[in-house]
């Protein structure tokens, strides 16, 4: 469901451009809000969330889609943890649909999807691996890297059980906004994929803005 934000971008506590192939890791305090902006359109922001107090509790795609009884994420979706607790809620969305079935690219899955010799190409999971070793202060390890959200990606499931990779429903400037229900760590890989027509083989920058709880 399309819903515009009530937040003023110029009042954000932090704003940062994240180039394709880079990662973004930051704490969001409970009640704070994060906006992810698809600056040039049809980009994928591969995103993980964790409970900042205990990162063994994290975003769970399974719990989220089961509890809302629907596969796609949009305004009103409550993101659930692996303990089935509320983690963040999508409070604004000008894109309308986000995927959480398709997972993230990795150099290993690229060998399967495209070619064994593409194993050397940069991938989301490599960005996450770099993030967890460069930011030990968040206490994340490989086992914490699970099943993510692909903001701005459109991966329709057909009633007969097929999975399609449709053209992006996103466009330049589309955004999604989430309010944290607990102190949260956000870890984004701005997807570097060069083999997928969904981004016209041209991954582009995103912007991430964070407001503190009192900013509305």
């Amino acid at each position, binding site marked *: 469901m399309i819903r515009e934000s009530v937040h003023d971008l110029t009042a954000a506590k932090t704003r940062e451009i994240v180039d394709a192939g880079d990662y973004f890791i930051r704490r969001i305090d409970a009640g704070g809000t994060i906006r992810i902006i698809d600056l040039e359109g049809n980009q994928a922001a591969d995103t993980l969330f964790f409970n900042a107090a205990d*990162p*063994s509790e*994290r975003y*769970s*795609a*399974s*719990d989220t*889609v*089961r509890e809302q*009884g*629907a*596969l*796609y994420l949009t305004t009103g979706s409550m993101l659930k943890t*692996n*303990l*089935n607790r509320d983690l963040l809620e999508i409070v604004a969305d000008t894109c309308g649909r986000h995927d959480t*079935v*398709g*997972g*993230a690219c*990795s150099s*290993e*899955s690229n*060998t*399967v*999807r495209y*070619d*064994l010799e593409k194993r050397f190409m940069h991938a989301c*999971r490599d960005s996450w691996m770099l993030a967890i070793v460069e930011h030990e202060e968040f206490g994340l*390890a*490989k*086992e*914490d890297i*699970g*099943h993510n959200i692909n903001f701005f990606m459109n991966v*329709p*499931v*057909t*009633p007969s*059980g*097929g*999975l*399609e*990779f449709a053209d992006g429903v996103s466009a330049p400037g589309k955004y999604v906004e989430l309010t944290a229900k607990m102190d949260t760590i956000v870890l984004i890989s701005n997807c570097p994929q060069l083999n997928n027509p969904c981004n016209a083989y041209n991954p582009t920058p995103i912007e991430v803005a964070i407001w503190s709880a009192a900013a509305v």
Partner: protein
Amino acid sequence: MTIQEMFPQDYRTTLLPAAHWSLTVRRGMQMQLTDTQGGANVGMLFYNPLLLSEKYNAPDSLKCQHTFKLTRGHCLYSDMGRVFASITEDSFGWHDTICGNAHPQHVADRWGKKDYQTDRNAWLQNGHDAFLVELAKYRLKKQDLAANLNLFSEVSADHQGRLALSRQSIAGDSVTLRFEMDTLVLMHNCPHPMNSGEEYPRNPVKIHLGMAQPVLSDDYCANLCDENRRGFQNNALYHLGLGL
């Protein structure tokens, strides 16, 4: 008589309702699971016993085979691009790998509290706790619990993406997994998290472990799509030098 001759090279058991189990299954073995009464749900996860951080990855499995349902021909991939197991036979046709497990609260809300003191091993076990117990036996933690298989449960989505537990197995339905590398298998026979039946489901599942037929060059699973051919190439690289 050798010790090998004393024991048959296959093994049969029954995964009782509310039970959980784990074992290492060697490459070249197959596991046939049969729902004896209909309406069972078997939660299942795979890990590499040599390096437990390598585990079943549902998104990678679905994405590379362009499917939401899992059935005959599909390969079940690890996060490292390798094939743990192939589905070589399947009378049911659609196994869920998205909806996860029932949590203690789900089972308590629907059927009552888990209470060993009263119910003994017929207690109202839930899939989440069942997996946590099996994981801990290998020093794995809840972080290591990935999106699992729910064998014998069909979960479909309509055009809007609304999910429904749309079909469950009938008596005699069976699925056969052929293991393409040594695999630590965790499983439970606890209700699907979207099961809203009146009674806590109690459906024994027969398990038959035995040698699989050799994988030939025209194998159905390995040739289902180019992606699976490449998955089997990754397995061949992993086994390079073993001479098998």
